């Protein structure tokens, strides 16, 4: 409604490289889309949390969690499909920049989900932004993947040099198997407990015990507790940190 301040034509500064089509088609897709992309989520946020929050903008058709392509665990983004365009618009207008699970999330129009887009596009399986991050973000698996590898290498040296056998978990070189992704890095002590929480969507879909919820929460709480001070820098106080959003946008795979 407020056409004075908002450039209505500018729907999303982000241009998905994998979109097959021209810029015009891309923009058209965004204009008609009933899908929104949600970024900067915690790895621990569940679909049900997303459902509770996003259903306040309208009836939800589907939620697709973004998963680490190696570990098949959530890696901090998702898609929400609405039934109506108006509801999708409201989700972008009213939820972007607000807090979910203690993190300011970003909500953008998306050109539409297609199979394959649920996987992280980073080298290590997660999102690209989690490759190169240098900050410590407990909600997103600690340090960025590159930093993690470096830390491991250092630790290996320190470990052997000091000869303190057994005081650190054995260092597993990064591999890209089932437990790739967030595994085997320097802060694995803290996050080791969280692995079992992450879902396996396909291979593991029907095999898991569902009573796991409780232990999950315990580990979440513990990790949350420990890491609170480190979390603060990411916490938005002023509500309008466009810089961070821009930054985030560029880094999005």
């Amino acid at each position, binding site marked *: *409604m*407020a*056409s*004075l*301040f*908002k450039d209505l034509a500018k729907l999303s500064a982000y241009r998905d490289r994998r979109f097959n089509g021209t810029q015009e088609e891309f923009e058209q897709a965004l204009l008609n889309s009933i899908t929104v992309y949600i970024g900067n989520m915690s790895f621990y946020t*569940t*679909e*049900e*949390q997303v*459902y*509770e*929050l996003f259903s*306040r*903008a*309208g*009836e939800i058709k*589907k*939620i*697709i*969690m973004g998963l680490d392509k190696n570990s098949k665990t959530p890696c901090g983004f998702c898609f929400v499909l609405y*039934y*109506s365009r108006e509801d999708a618009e*409201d989700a972008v*207008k*009213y*939820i972007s*920049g*607000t*807090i*979910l*699970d*203690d993190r300011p999330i970003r909500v953008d129009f998306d050109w539409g989900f297609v199979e394959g887009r649920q996987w992280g596009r980073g080298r290590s399986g997660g999102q690209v932004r989690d490759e190169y991050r240098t900050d410590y973000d407990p909600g997103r698996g600690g340090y960025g993947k590159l930093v993690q590898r470096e830390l491991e290498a250092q630790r290996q040296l320190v470990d052997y040099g000091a000869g303190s056998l057994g005081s650190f978990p054995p260092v597993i070189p990064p591999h890209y198997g089932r437990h790739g992704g967030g595994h085997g890095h320097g802060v694995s002590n803290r996050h080791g407990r969280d692995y079992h929480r992450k*879902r396996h*969507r396909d291979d593991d*879909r*029907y*095999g*898991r015990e*569902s*009573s796991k*919820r*409780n232990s999950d*929460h*315990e580990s*979440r*709480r513990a990790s*949350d507790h420990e890491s609170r001070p480190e979390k603060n820098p990411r916490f938005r*106080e*002023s*509500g*309008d940190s466009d810089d961070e959003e821009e930054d985030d946008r560029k880094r999005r795979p």
Partner: protein
Amino acid sequence: MSSWKSLLLRIGDKSSEYNSSSDLKDHIETCFGALRRELAHSSSEILPFLLQCAEQLPHKIPLYGTLIGLLNLEDEDFVKKIVEDTQNVFQDALGSGNCDRIRISMRFLTALMCSKVLQPASLVVVFETLLSSAAITVDEEKGNPSWQARADFYVICILSCLPWGGAELAEQVPEEIERVLVGIQAYLSIRRHTSDSGLSFFEDDESGGDIVEKDFLEDLWERIQVLSNNGWKVESVPRPHLSFEAQLVAGKSHEFGPISCPEQPEPPSTNSAVAYGKQKHDAELKYPQRIRRLNIFPASKTEDLQPIDRFVVEEYLLDVLLFFNGCRKECASFMVGLPVPFRYEYLMAETIFSQLLLLPHPPFKPIYYTLVIMDLCKALPGAFPAVVAGAVRALFDKIAGLDMECRTRLILWFSHHLSNFQFIWPWDEWAYVLDLPKWAPQRVFVQEVLEREVRLSYWDKIKQSIENASALEELLPPKGGPNFKYGRTDGQEKTEQEQAISADLSNKVKGRQSAREIILWIEENIYPIHGLEITLSVVIQTLLDIGSKSFTHLITVLERYGQVMAKLCSDQDKQVMLIAEVSSYWKNNAQMTAIAIDRMMGYRLISNLAIVRWVFSPENIEQFHISDCPWEVLRNAVSKTYNRITDLRKEISSLKKGVISAEEAASKAKADLEAAESKLTLLEGEPVLGENPAKLKHLKSVAEKAKEEEESMHDSLQAKEALLARALDENEVLFLSLYKNFSTVLMERLPDDATLQSLKSHGDSMAVDLEESPAMEVDDENGIPKKSQSNGGKATNIYNVGEKEQWCLSTLGYLKAFSRQYASEIWPHIEKLDAEVFTEDAHPLFRKAVYSGLRRLSNEL
């Protein structure tokens, strides 16, 4: 953005464009200087932009009005064009009933009058036109009183201009304006007082009866009278034109041609109350009341301003909310930076809460106001959070009287708000609710807020957040895991056989057997041996368990094996059993219960009627006053039904447009073809009829295709219309069933001679009189209440409404809320409902709740 544009936009704001000056005269001179330079070559750009600014930033209208007055001295034609354009916009808005545009155009005209662009007499003519239309509407003989909403709106618009131009009018055309005011007084004496108990935030204490609350128009009239007695002085309206008076008088006044109000809608042909009610409902939809005052703070917080200032500030705030929906930064900064010389945080909070809770619907989704409140808390960190906390406390104290729909919105808002502020709240203040019976509204409120917080976060986190009142843990929802009857661990109550079936089924699913294979297996090997109940329980529980890990898992199972459920639960009885099984599986997780039932309805495995039946089953009825869970399920079902109808209506309206353009295309193609056929062309030297054959052939095929297209559009339109007709019939059945169920359960439980008052006065202490209680004292620094023991906890502690009475109050409250929310869908079926449910036999309180929800005149009762 060109500099003149940003100067126009930012005029009046403390901004870099104006070197942070706050002198309005400076602003106007600077902006005027820039516009004057541009006027010669970009007047065609300036004009629409200026009008757009005036419409979307109506709190700056006095500044724009003065600017235009100054421009009038430079370029009369430019300003003449502005007046003409405004007239057109205004006339169109009147015709289409665009309330916001009518209101704002009139304020703009008033400002133009103040800066001498318009004659005061022209404005008076506008007022008189609207007033006479209003007077005719409410005339029993010549008019159509069911459309009073529109008449009231017109009169409100006239009165709303007076804070902006009352002084000028009174000075320049005293007799004329007096005549208008006398006319309004006369109008007020013939119109009906609107008593909208169906839309008030609080269940009114009808016991008193003698104090009739003023309706919005009566209230505004009173404020205007005070204003007039005060010599039309208004602090909240800037009057920048006064600084330029000497120049402005030299400007030429422009003509403002006559305007016309739309015809009176035809009164109903039959003189029945039902027909009248339907029209009244339509009129109120089209001309809704913008605001209903929510008095939550003690008068001392807000009433030190003049009565009219409150109205003006509300107008400002509502307009910012309207036009800056979706622009967070601007919205918050305009909200906090209104051009008034006094503080208004309390008024701002009341206004936003009054919108969040506005009945029947706020102009925007409640989540918008949630966002605005968050942003204001961040924009005014020293002041606003404490005010919000004060509002929460005040509403909490009065929660027992708060409308059910408002309670639900408040719960959703509060939980969401807290989730954005680390779930910090002084819960210990409310720890006393544990001593209240489990149906006490305050206790239920705390419990439901915690439930929603857990949904937005997770159980342990919320448990941690109430550490300062750990006793409240008792009100936390269960930890939320599924309750699988055939899980490996508890074998005692289920036979091994049943466990084995469950395991078999589970393996079949893992082995990716098709739904058809599983149906066959059930029909051949399970059902014949174990019978319906066991088969249904094992199959449903097992499938739910397979889909229990997340929303997506659930959907996947329903998509793949929904047919198995559908086959097993083919009629309504079995669907009710299916729902009961869902609720048993997810008994520890209200959210998953609601989601699973909702999705099953989505896949049409269960009907909305089955859901209604389940909601009104004995176990749920017992929950009506102590939990929102059954109501959530019912709300979802009705809203999904409504959404389906809305979608169909949208599709039909776009198909209709498609049909029209297809028809046009077809007739054009046909005309082209005929034109080509009738043309004479030379073929091998001989004139022949018709164009060259290739082109003709092409035209022919185009015409045929267009015709086909047209027909197929017609067909799909017809198909959709048939679907809509069926959906509407089903809707009628749904509402019949819903109301019958409500009527029955209420009849069984309401005492014969019950009145609302007798239900409430069971303990005579439900309502805590806020005005007399200093409980609202809030420490402005940090929001910590200075609540003393005597009036905080204890005063509200003496809730002693009996369980049965509270059950009745809650159920009636929900009944009213449903009726109100879906009133537009219910009114078309009113004759049928009257004949079958709202009969003489129904309990009077049942009918009263429905009628007030539908805003039906209650004198029929």
